[in-house]
């Protein structure tokens, strides 16, 4: 298993947000993490990436215990993510945003002092431009990231996450706010990424999207895992239906 | 001897307390560190000297000096808070610094750089309590400070304007949506701060019989230390912090000489920022936005 969570728990104040959560993801797999609002899905991502320390339990990346490791080291070991509320660096251009993530591949003082200059000649800049071109975003390369439309920013964030050459990619509501055409484009992009061997863990509310992309799903409610099964079978699970009672999401 | 030092410290502290209240109001309600406040202090003090020297009766001089604080505060408000935009969160702080420079240098241009001595048109009376001497004007200053803050406390808790201010402190955008007349209420914060500071400047000039274009930098700036030590955003904390800083200063002079004052007062600020940034009475920790 490339990513594994064992008995993870987290409380804020007196409130237990994640309760003894365990699940694993196999290499190259596409796993969906779903649940009603407030189930703790983003919190799980935050725990995995080290935004918060876990109260108890373990997180394992490539069978290595990363539970106490500071966030930047987790990224340098091949864990990348996108955010529910896009977090691009507003004062950097699109291409600079992408280049930021390149550092994680070979972090060192020397790497920090490497020129990233101007023009096509520079290797890092060329690589970032190529990645943007592959995503159809080359035209935006020189634009300030903060000024772009939402859909473009989401795509840039994905390119940025990939620039770190991750083994595992955590996607927090990648389809949120996208229209059907954009959602379809996103699906194609993620399929391509998965085919290249990147393991995907996707938090999503769009069940159609989940159904097409992820064969397996883990269902969360109130911080507990209430189901873990093939995507097609969640309708049959009574606890899942109960959790979504009244919600149209599962339809 | 010790009691005298403590009394002296408290008297000086009341000067800091008023300035600290002005600082803490701006931070607490507007999340804005108003660096122009020492400028109000200095202008009020210099104006007091100037008016008294020109023979103006002291009640009028007092009124004018104190009012100057309110007027200058309104000027600053127009160019700082009014123009606060989301992206450039440091702008109000920076602009307030520019105002401090403006006020200090205008006074330098107008009245030169000398420290001025005040000759008071009235006798200063002192009370004796055992072996301790308390100058009555200084006691009045302390009483003013406490009274002013008590009134402010009342304003904040019991009046409509006060509720508006507290709502703005929570969240300026929500406040506007809830119908708080932000455009009318925010100037109140500035004016109150300006008046308090100017009052403090006037009292200082009268009690210590001196005023200089640098008194903002040298004295009122310590109000920031008082504010943080007492707890940012807490007006009673500002009083406590001010009195504490005053006492610390007097004892520092006593123990180490006048040149050690800055080290002690600002060293205390530094220590509090590292160890307990919420201050003694627990102020607010706010996100970003200067």
């Amino acid at each position, binding site marked *: 298993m490339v990513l594994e969570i064992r008995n993870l728990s987290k409380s804020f104040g007196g409130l237990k947000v994640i309760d003894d959560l365990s699940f694993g993801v196999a290499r190259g797999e596409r796993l969906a993490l779903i649940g009603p609002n407030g189930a703790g899905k983003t919190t799980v991502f935050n725990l995995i*990436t*080290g935004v918060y320390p876990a109260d108890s339990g373990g997180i394992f990346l490539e069978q290595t215990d990363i539970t106490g490791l*500071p*966030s*930047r080291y987790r*990224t340098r070991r091949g864990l990348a*993510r996108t*955010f529910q509320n896009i*977090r*691009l*660096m*507003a*004062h*950097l*251009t699109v291409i*600079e*945003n992408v*280049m*930021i*993530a390149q*550092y994680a591949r070979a972090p060192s003082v020397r790497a*920090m*002092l490497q*020129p*990233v200059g*101007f023009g096509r000649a520079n290797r*890092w800049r060329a690589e970032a431009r190529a990645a943007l071109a592959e995503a159809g975003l080359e035209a935006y390369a*020189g634009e300030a990231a903060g000024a772009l439309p939402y859909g473009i920013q989401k795509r840039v964030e994905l390119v940025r996450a990939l620039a*770190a050459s991750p083994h595992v990619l955590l996607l927090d509501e990648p389809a949120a706010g996208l229209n059907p055409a954009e959602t379809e484009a996103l699906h194609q992009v993620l399929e391509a990424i998965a085919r290249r061997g990147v393991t995907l863990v996707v938090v999503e509310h769009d069940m159609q999207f989940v159904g097409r992309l992820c064969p397996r799903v883990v269902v969360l409610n109130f911080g507990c895992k209430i189901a873990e099964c093939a995507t097609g079978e969640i309708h049959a699970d009574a606890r899942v239906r109960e959790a979504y009672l009244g919600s149209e999401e599962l339809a | 001897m010790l009691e005298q030092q403590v009394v002296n410290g408290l008297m000086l502290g009341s000067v800091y307390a008023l300035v600290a209240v002005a600082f803490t109001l701006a931070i607490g309600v507007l999340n804005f*560190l108003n660096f122009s406040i020492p400028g109000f202090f200095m202008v009020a003090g210099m104006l007091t000297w100037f008016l008294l020297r020109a023979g103006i009766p002291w009640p009028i001089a007092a009124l004018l000096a104190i009012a100057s604080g309110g007027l200058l505060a309104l000027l600053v408000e127009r160019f700082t808070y009014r*123009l606060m*935009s989301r992206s*450039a969160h*440091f702008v109000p*702080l*920076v*602009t307030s*610094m*520019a105002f*401090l*420079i*403006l006020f*200090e*240098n*205008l006074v330098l*241009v107008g009245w030169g750089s000398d420290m001025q001595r005040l000759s008071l048109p009235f006798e200063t009376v002192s009370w004796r309590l055992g072996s301790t001497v308390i100058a009555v004007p200084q006691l009045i200053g302390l009483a003013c400070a406490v009274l002013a803050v008590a009134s402010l406390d009342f304003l904040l808790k019991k009046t409509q304007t006060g509720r508006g201010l507290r709502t703005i402190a929570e969240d300026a955008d929500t406040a506007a949506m809830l119908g708080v007349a932000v455009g009318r209420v925010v100037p109140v914060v500035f004016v109150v701060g300006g008046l308090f500071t100017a009052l403090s400047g006037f009292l200082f000039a009268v009690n210590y019989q001196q005023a200089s274009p640098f008194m903002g930098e040298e004295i009122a700036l310590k109000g*920031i230390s008082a504010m943080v030590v007492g707890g940012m955003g807490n007006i009673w904390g500002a009083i406590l912090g001010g009195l504490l800083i005053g006492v610390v200063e007097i004892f520092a002079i006593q123990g180490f000489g006048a*040149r*050690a004052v*800055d080290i002690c*007062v*600002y*060293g205390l*600020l530094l220590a509090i*920022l*590292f160890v307990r*940034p919420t201050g003694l009475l627990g102020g607010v920790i*706010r996100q*970003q936005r*200067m």
Partner: protein
Amino acid sequence: MSGYLESVLVLLAINVILAYAAFLPMVAGQLNLGVAAFVAIGAYSAGYCSNSFFVHPVPAALAGSAVAGIIGWLVAFPILRTRGIYLALATFALNQVVQGTILNLDVVGGASGYPVPAHIGFAVVAAFSLAVIVLVFLAFRTRFGISVTAVSDDERAADLMGLSVRGLQSAAFTAGAALAGLAGALYAHHFNYIEAQNYGVLFSIYIVLYVLLGGTQTVYGPLLGAAVFTLLPELLRGSAAWRYVIFACLIIAIMSLRPQGVILKRSWFSK
């Protein structure tokens, strides 16, 4: 070159170094109100070196810069645990404490000022200034440039992208301190006299303000800021106080109309 023109150019050269000393922490998101403290540390330690150890002024200046840098690095540990306004306040407090400490050090003259006879001429000052400009320009063409900007934009996201936030912030702060120390040391050895009274928070404020005037989005901004601050008074020929009045009004105007400063970032990506 006339003596007057030369002293103006020397001031310009020194102000440019000061501008970058403030610029580096600011790009990393730190409002450093303690710049003046490091200028003073550099000036006084360099002066002490050349006075007491009879070191040649140029190595003394470098020593002064190093001392300022080391102290900056040490102080960065506690200071960088604070953020935003607390950081600004901590650097402000630091500035006053340092100034207060120097005022008490009679070995370097205390409140009476400190003469530093060893002289550094205009050519050397100018050379240092140019070197600093080149270094800063080069630094911002490296990954360091975009990384510190990233940290100031969104610290959490930068951390999650694998950047060492503390390392970058510390580097910017320390480099700023070293540059400030260099500027101070050069000033001490050119004008041959320094006074602790000049290194209060207001001096830091002047520097920060003229950097903001030029703009912190590009490496050219601080140059423009330093130039305006140094040359404007010469054009206006008023008393020192009048110059600052005009400067303050200029700042207020700029902050009202164009808070990002005069020079804005053009995208460097050219096809």
